[in-house]
């Protein structure tokens, strides 16, 4: 395998039973990424459950309850490598009750595979997931029209789904959408080209994933470095060392760069960029490094280092899209903990501007109750300024979560507009 192979993280999406887990099983199986003992184990389980063949969904549906109910409850992560690329797969649940787990798997993805059952077409849950994928700004979307074997591999059935999906997605902000007709169960157009659908000229799914261009997905312009912790060694040799440890959120930092530390506004120059005993000339996203500055400045966790000629505006009032992930509905004007990069503050939902109707994507300004799985536009006020960018420009400095202080639960995912 090439040492300079890139990682592609992708997620599955789509309604319950549309075949997501089966597809991942098929992908792993046909790409020879399954070990013999794993295969043996699921062959046995399939037999016990009275299945005819091997139930490929069992590769990812690993929990007892999932196997009993035949559905996915929580995200399963799977890994595989081809000579071209290395993949991290998040197989997510389609059931509406577990939307929070779908969002978990999708939040870090470069690509989403949205499955649609060719017999049923685009339904509400397909729309919800497609909308969440667009909200999360997943750069690449592959719509797999699945179960083509159940519609006699007919091109009309495939085209019907494309029309339905495009009608809906024209209202979404997605740049790269492709369509593939597949049968996850039989393997058509997953790894190998289908023998049953000669009318389809495009590439099978794996080839599409292997060749998709992902280098330009990261923001390389706006240099942002949230400080996670300060390294102050107690040793003789490094007595004066004061390193700001963190992970570059976006952009590139170079030795000698003029930087501003926020929120204090002090300026300095980058003296060194270190990883372990090694000094680097530059650091870019998503590298974890430690930065030292020419001047002694008071910096702590939650602060951000940015280049002086390009820095985020400190804002106490933020408008954001909020995805509510908890059974307890949002409490108007209640205090939540907001976590944004390495920063933590108190925040309040000051106003719900509108809720989105998932089916029509219409805004409903009259409906401002925020409950489980609702997606709303809100105004948030924080006790101290946040150093945010718009989410569409920066997935790291544009995202935040809300935590309920009375339960410690993560209740919402937010994207700054």
């Amino acid at each position: 395998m090439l040492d300079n192979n890139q990682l592609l993280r992708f997620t599955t999406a789509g309604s319950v039973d549309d075949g997501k887990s089966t597809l991942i099983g098929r992908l792993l199986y046909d790409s020879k990424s399954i070990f013999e003992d794993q295969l043996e184990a699921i062959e046995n389980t399939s037999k016990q459950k009275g299945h005819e063949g091997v139930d490929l969904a069992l590769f990812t549906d690993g929990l007892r309850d999932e196997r009993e109910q035949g559905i996915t409850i929580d995200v399963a992560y799977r890994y595989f490598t081809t000579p071209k690329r290395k993949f991290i797969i998040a197989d997510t649940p389609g059931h509406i009750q577990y939307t929070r787990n779908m969002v978990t798997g999708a939040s870090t993805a470069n690509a989403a595979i949205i499955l649609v059952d060719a017999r049923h077409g685009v339904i509400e849950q397909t729309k919800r997931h497609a909308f969440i994928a667009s909200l999360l700004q997943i750069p690449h979307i592959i719509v797999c029209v699945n179960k083509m074997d159940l519609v006699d591999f007919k091109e009309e059935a495939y085209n019907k789904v494309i029309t339905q999906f495009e009608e809906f997605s024209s209202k979404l902000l997605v740049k790269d959408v492709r369509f593939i007709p597949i049968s996850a169960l039989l393997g058509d157009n997953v790894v190998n080209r289908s023998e049953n659908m000669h009318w389809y000229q495009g590439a099978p799914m794996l080839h599409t994933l292997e060749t998709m261009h992902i280098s330009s997905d990261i923001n390389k312009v706006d240099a942002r470095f949230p400080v996670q912790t300060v390294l102050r060694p107690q040793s003789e040799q490094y007595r004066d060392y004061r390193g700001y440890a963190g992970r570059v959120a976006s952009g590139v930092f170079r030795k000698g760069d003029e930087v501003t530390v926020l929120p204090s506004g002090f300026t300095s120059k980058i003296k060194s960029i270190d990883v372990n005993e090694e000094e680097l000339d530059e650091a870019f996203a998503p590298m974890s490094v430690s930065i030292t500055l020419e001047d002694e400045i008071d910096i702590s966790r939650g602060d951000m280092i940015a280049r002086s000629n390009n820095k985020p505006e400190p804002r106490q009032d933020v408008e954001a899209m909020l995805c509510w992930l908890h059974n307890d509905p949002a409490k108007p004007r209640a205090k939540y903990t907001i976590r944004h990069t390495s920063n933590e503050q108190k925040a309040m939902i000051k106003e719900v501007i509108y809720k989105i109707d998932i089916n029509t994507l219409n805004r409903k300004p009259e409906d401002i109750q925020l409950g489980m799985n609702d997606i709303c536009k809100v105004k948030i006020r924080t006790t101290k300024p946040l150093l945010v960018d718009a989410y569409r420009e920066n997935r790291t400095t544009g995202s935040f979560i809300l935590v309920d202080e009375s339960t410690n639960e993560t209740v919402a995912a937010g994207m700054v507009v």
Partner: protein
Amino acid sequence: MSKYYLNYLDELESEAIYILREVWAQFQNPVILFSGGKDSIVVTHLAKKAFFPSKIPFALMHVDTGHNFPETIRFRDDLITSLGVRLIVGSVQESIDTGRVAEEKGKNATRNALQITTLLDAIEGNKVDCAIGGGRRDEEKARAKERFFSHRDDFGQWDPKNQRPELWNLFNGKHFEGEHFRAFPISNWTEMDVWNYIKRENIEIPSLYFAHEREVVWRNSSWIPNSEFLQLDGSEKIETKKIRFRTLGDITITGGIESDADTVEKIAQEVAAMRQTERGNRSDDKRSETAMEDRKKQGYF
């Protein structure tokens, strides 16, 4: 292709370092669960990198089943000395002696399940609020479901059906008194990645991972090493084979494989061609279909 992208191993390393620093920043008293196996050695190496030039700010916690490979203990003690970190030992023998747990009986008896009590006692007794593990999602199907920051209630239990959402790289380590977290910095690594990383970073590992002539007995489809704890039944006999171990755990249940791989390069090649998962040789996972999930719910590593 632009020069501003990381290769997969650098990206995995960077992710792990980020998580280790988050653990340090969000918890009062985190420890690294150190088994002496390659995964916990890699996590310890990553911790060294994450905090350099400071020392690793965590203690290492070893849950000692009392059934050790002597090499593991020597390796552990040398590592502790060279890193200058504190070692906490939770002893299964002590848990047995004080009546906290009862030893299993019979030929297939193991101390595997007993470790749960010892581990949870050690976590509680040392007021540990986050235990960092070397668990990887590719190891086992229940582990494939684990979050980076994984919540444990005040009984140390995992609730896989009700995990907190974990969005982007924003980790929520908030918890009530008595609860704790498990953190898994190398969640996204595969066995192959671990070996490639050991090779690249030149990380020292116990000689048990390399092929050597050893006394072993064939049991449950793998080669179990001879030790003072081994009880043979009539049909079993001790043989000498060239063996190496893919994982290290309790000596009584860790099965080896026949191999000639005596360098990290050869091991990496061998692993790349492997058709069985590494845990396929561990009888603790073979006990039932959901053995790992059941143990993890109770508080296992």
